[in-house]
């Protein structure tokens, strides 16, 4: 018996990229940024300080995004990440202060999971619309932490209704010989070599244990979700829960667990903010990073690698803005101008004349702005991460693909 001769041959899509592709992208970026630095003289673009600050800015966003990833891969939209993060900051403050640094980490995870639990109960068990539940969690979490903080931190040394006392710090790693040894190399401004030195220095100077854990969690998430049975089942719940159910997967249980893990990740993201990015719980500390995490996840096409890239881009541009923003962001203008012109050429070759003209005009305008001003005002440097995110999404968004059943309500027994 042979397969029927049916005339339908879409070529299988190439989806797997080799690790070398990623390496090439990273190296390419490094070269591009080095070039930009040479051309514009904005030498904070790749300093080790910028890179380590980028790491610190990236990890909480990435963790929040991971939280989103876990949940949405199982089909539950989680707009409550911000709230879960807020709970995490409080958990870190409370448990960290009373029981020590690692207890703070656990406390952050635990409180994040409480948020996850509410979301799971609401969406998985009561079939509440995911957005409604997420919004409610954001409100509840904010109110609850503010209320609890005023009950638990007032009167403690350095504590108050809006902040916790200082949390003991987590261990961090400095490999002094490498860090100091490379300092000279970094400062000598050798094209690309210095940049590599800066990266290595950033990774060997004052690297918090939680940063390492955060980055590892990205890897672990990838391995668990894509290389294990558990992950396959979990993802199947996000792609087609009825299929999963028809094959004996306990869909609700997987969704429930996924949302709990999501809460844990978001909580840890909050914990990171309180313990590594700073050293106490502060009201309003998350500053919308939960939403940014959500954006980073979508940006990254619901995949760990992409999501890390999105978080990194965000962390990087935010860091640039906060450090020597006026110069660095100014330099970025040039990059944007060149990029827009490049896209214009690309579009022209694809015969998309109107798009090409649009990009060309944009490129020229941004380029003109670059040459017209010497530095960018603070207000605008603060916008950079958001504008860049919009730009990038505007350019690349159409290829995104979310889990097929993401956000849909699902009830047991609906297979068939």
């Amino acid at each position, binding site marked *: *018996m*042979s*397969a*029927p*001769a*049916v*005339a*339908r*041959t*879409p*070529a*299988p*899509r190439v*989806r797997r990229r080799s690790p070398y592709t990623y390496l090439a992208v990273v190296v390419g970026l490094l070269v591009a940024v080095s070039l930009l630095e040479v051309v514009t003289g904005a030498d904070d673009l790749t300093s080790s300080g910028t890179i380590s600050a980028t790491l610190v800015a990236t990890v909480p966003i990435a963790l929040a995004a991971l939280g989103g990833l876990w949940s949405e891969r199982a089909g539950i939209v989680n707009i409550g990440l911000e709230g879960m993060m807020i709970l995490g900051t409080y958990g870190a403050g409370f448990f960290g202060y009373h029981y020590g640094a690692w207890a703070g980490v656990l406390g952050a995870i635990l409180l994040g999971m409480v948020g996850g639990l509410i979301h799971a109960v609401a969406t998985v068990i009561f079939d509440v619309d995911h957005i409604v539940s997420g919004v409610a969690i954001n409100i509840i979490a904010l109110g609850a932490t503010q209320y609890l903080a005023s009950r638990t931190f007032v009167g403690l040394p350095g504590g108050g209704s809006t902040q916790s006392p200082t949390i003991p710090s987590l261990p961090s790693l400095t490999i002094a010989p490498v860090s100091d040894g490379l300092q000279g190399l970094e400062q000598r401004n050798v094209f690309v070599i210095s940049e590599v030195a800066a990266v290595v220095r950033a990774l060997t100077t004052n690297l918090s244990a939680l940063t390492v854990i955060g980055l590892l969690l990205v890897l672990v998430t990838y391995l668990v979700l894509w*290389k*294990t*049975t558990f992950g*396959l*089942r979990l*993802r*199947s719940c996000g*792609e*087609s829960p*009825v*299929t*999963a*159910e*028809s*094959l*004996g*997967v*306990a869909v609700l249980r997987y969704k429930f667990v996924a949302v709990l893990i999501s809460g844990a990740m978001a909580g840890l993201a909050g914990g990171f903010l309180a313990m590594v990015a700073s050293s106490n719980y502060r009201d309003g500390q998350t500053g919308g990073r939960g939403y940014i995490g959500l954006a980073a996840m979508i940006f990254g096409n619901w995949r760990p690698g992409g999501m890390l890239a999105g978080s990194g881009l965000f962390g990087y541009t935010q860091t640039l803005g906060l450090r020597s923003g006026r110069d660095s962001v100014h330099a970025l203008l040039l990059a944007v101008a060149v990029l827009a012109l490049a896209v214009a050429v690309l579009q022209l070759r694809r015969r998309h004349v109107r798009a090409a003209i649009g990009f060309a005009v944009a490129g020229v305008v941004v380029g003109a702005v670059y040459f017209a001003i010497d530095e960018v005002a603070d207000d605008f440097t603060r916008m950079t991460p958001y504008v860049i995110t919009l730009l990038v999404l505007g350019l690349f968004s159409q290829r995104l*693909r979310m*889990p*097929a059943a993401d956000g849909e309500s699902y009830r047991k*027994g609906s*297979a*068939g």
Partner: protein
Amino acid sequence: MASVETPSRSDAPPAVRLRGIGKRFPGVIANDDINIDVARGTIHAIVGENGAGKSTLMKILYGVQPPDSGTIEIDGAAVTLGSPADAIKAGVGMVFQHFMLADNLTVAENVVLGAERLHGIGAAAREEITRISGSYGLGVDPDRLVEDLGVGARQRVEILKVLYRGARIVILDEPTAVLVPQEVDELFDNLRELKAEGLSVIFISHKLDEVLSVADEITVVRRGTTVTTVDPAGVTARQLAELMVGSELPSPSTESSTVTDEVLLSVRDLTLPDPAGGRPLVDGVSFDIHRGEVLGIAGVEGNGQAELVETIMGMRDGATGTVELAGTDLSGRSTGQRREAGIGYIPEDRHRHGLLLDSSLWENRVLGHQTRRPSVSHGLVDRAAARADTQRIIEAYDVRTPGPEVPARALSGGNQQKLIVGREMSGDPVLLIAAHPTRGVDVGAQAAIWDHVKNARRNGLAVLLISADLDELIGLSDRIEVILRGGLVGRFDPSEVTPEDLGSAMTGAGSDAPREEGSP
């Protein structure tokens, strides 16, 4: 009741014995005192009209839904099936009426899902898949994404899933609805092979000829109850149909031709490029339809018929070529303007394209007619008029519903379809585009829909009919065009062509058509 002797091994306990199965849904008795024996190593067909309770019964046997009453025995042992996992453990496998596949996962991932314990999820599993695929000739590549597969291949993946789990009892719920005759033959060969290996197959279909050709026994279900079990050798399709519904089996026979000389729809060089950059989805299609003519389009799913329809409807960007309706050039017009120009559209997927499931019937009456009376006037929705006209459709088209206020979701598929047909016929269209107008609809509703199409044609309507049901195509059309890889490749006279001829043309047999996948 019951009738046939179990063929040979009557001494062995039956593979499946269902006794007194009952299942109620709110307000509906889906199953009531169902009794069926399926002998080992046989193909057992179950037939019945829409909503007779066939799928429900199979879901019960597969553990998706618990029965309210009754017992299930498998190989002589009583079992309780609380979940599909239980059923799989008991050796039951099911291919659902609507495929149960995750599009964005690979074939291998779909197959191993839930059965990871057997061979893991890695290389060993892939090897096993390749082995099974080879030994049953399924020709399935484990590394492809399911979304890239056509219907036939998806079906084989479904069967592979069942086999991978070592099922001894295989349930197939309406597996042939979307297949062309050749694919059906392939499937039946597969089933016979399974049977030869000692597996039992439960097979549900509305196509009675098929049932008669492949089944060893046939059980008829009517209104939730088993009516009888018959031997296919002793019944005709007509008798079966009478058992099912108590009425005659309708056939889509064309009456005398009503074709005129007046060209109503003229399509020239219609081309729709693939946004992903592949070959065009619709490739230089040209044809005319005259007043009073039904043009049938035959083709294997995924060869561009859906895109052709959507391009004519103006739902696709980037199309080139011209579409002229009654002398008016519609190219460049929006879907709304095309509808206003007099195109009625019965979409292929009524849930996705035809209805607002959570809106009332009268709101669904407005849909697609937002610019026209009686439902809308002066930019305002005329609720009273819309309701009244909906009531008219309900009566004229025998839509079974308590009234125009209920949400469309509450109607069964057949009744939803009748509502859509009624809606699209209102507003006096000059052209009706009907994509699979009777898919999944039972014989009664099917006959009614056919009658409506024939009447309209008599009154001068031009019809573009797309259908996977070749009997329907042959019966209704005045002319049949075959579509293959986006282009029209052959023209047939329905009075002379057989389904087999059509099937060959549709698959490009004899031509240099590439095979879907590397076959063994």
